[in-house]
């Protein structure tokens, strides 16, 4: 019974809530892709792993938890659409993660994973999101700074 009630409450929260949230307008940072990686930091500034963890949780920002199980025990709901990110820091380097987050479709054109730092080629984007990226260049760096700490299996 506790189970069902818990689920009833949880689903009341919309997945990928479309509510207004300030995203980054304007110029995109340019970057170079080398062998399915982006070697250079997008901002030249070190990422903040604590902020990155928060962005990964935030449903209106990264919402990485929407599709990935992550070592974030205080959050009840973890998606299982993508592979678990536990230990991803032992499997992938920052450069590989960077292209994956910026535009996963450069690696797998059929993937369901959104391009988090990209604006072109989308169909019928809602007016309020036009010309904006899902997260900022610094958000990308923060998330990477967090993911590289996820060592182990």
């Amino acid at each position: 019974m506790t189970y069902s009630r818990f689920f009833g409450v949880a689903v009341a929260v919309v997945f990928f809530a479309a509510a207004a949230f300030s995203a980054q307008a304007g110029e995109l940072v340019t970057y170079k892709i080398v062998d399915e990686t982006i070697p250079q930091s997008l901002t030249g500034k070190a990422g903040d792993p604590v902020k990155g963890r928060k962005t990964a949780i935030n449903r209106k920002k990264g919402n990485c938890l929407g599709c990935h199980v992550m070592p974030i025990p205080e959050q009840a709901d973890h998606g299982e659409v993508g592979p678990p990110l536990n230990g991803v820091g032992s499997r992938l380097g920052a450069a590989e993660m960077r292209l994956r987050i910026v535009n996963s479709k450069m690696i797998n054109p059929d993937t369901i994973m959104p391009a988090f730092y990209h604006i072109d080629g989308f169909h019928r984007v809602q007016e309020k999101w036009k010309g904006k990226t899902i997260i900022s260049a610094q958000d990308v760096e923060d998330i990477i700074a967090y993911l590289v700490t996820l060592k182990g299996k």
Partner: protein
Amino acid sequence: MGNKWLGVATVAVIGAAIAALVGADAAAKSDKKMEKMTEVEKRAADPRNKKYIVGDKRTGYVFLTPATRDIQDDDFSNPSFVWVETGEELWSKVDGKAGKSCASCHGDAAKSMKGVSTAYPKYASEVKKLMALQHRINWERKNRMQAKPWKWESSEMLGMTAYIKVQSRGMPINAKIDGPAKPFYEKGKKFYNQRRGMLDMACAQCHLDYPATMIRSNLLSQGMANGFPTFRLKWQKLGSLHRRFTGCNKQVRATPYKRGSDEYTNLELFLMDRAKGLPSEAPSVRM
């Protein structure tokens, strides 16, 4: 993913059947097993799912929590029936300049409307395109009753669609996609597979590639349309299929179409064909 689900469901149904046969001892063991199951496996194991599974097809019911199933299974607790009653009253209520009600032409809905909604949306020569049930209702109101059209999401329209659809409850969905319906079906199919919005996702990516998968707090279903209109606990009211489309468009940050638009009606036909053979489940209860 679909196969994984099928496996879990079959094993669980067989498991439940054996437990019932072998008696209390085995049942106690199977209780222990239930405790260890994941939430998804538990939902799949409910023997009530059986009539909502046809071949590879599953209605949204199969993905619900048992508690939500309880609400749907009892017409007295299913809040949709408030709207069904509205529909029943409107059925025989005279409206419009022609001085007629639906009943004036169609008599007893339990007889005349049985099976009708399973064929919708349907090509209509009057308009040379598809009509969803709502379009047909408003066409009748305008042309036969000379009454004002109802708004798509009004309680009158929801009530009447629920009332007409409940006459076909349990009957297999059977919409036509050949002949003049073909080009409209093809458009619906294209819509279904088109990536859209800032998140750049197609209907097919969530509902074809990942059913029975948690997407944060939601368990993805096959996105079947045979339960609509549905009472969503989240909406706290009955809602149309096109309202659901609007929601699924907005969650990927795409501009939705209008309810009742050609785009959504063509999409509805594509979904009804996906649900072909599943029992008509409207008015259902969903989370």
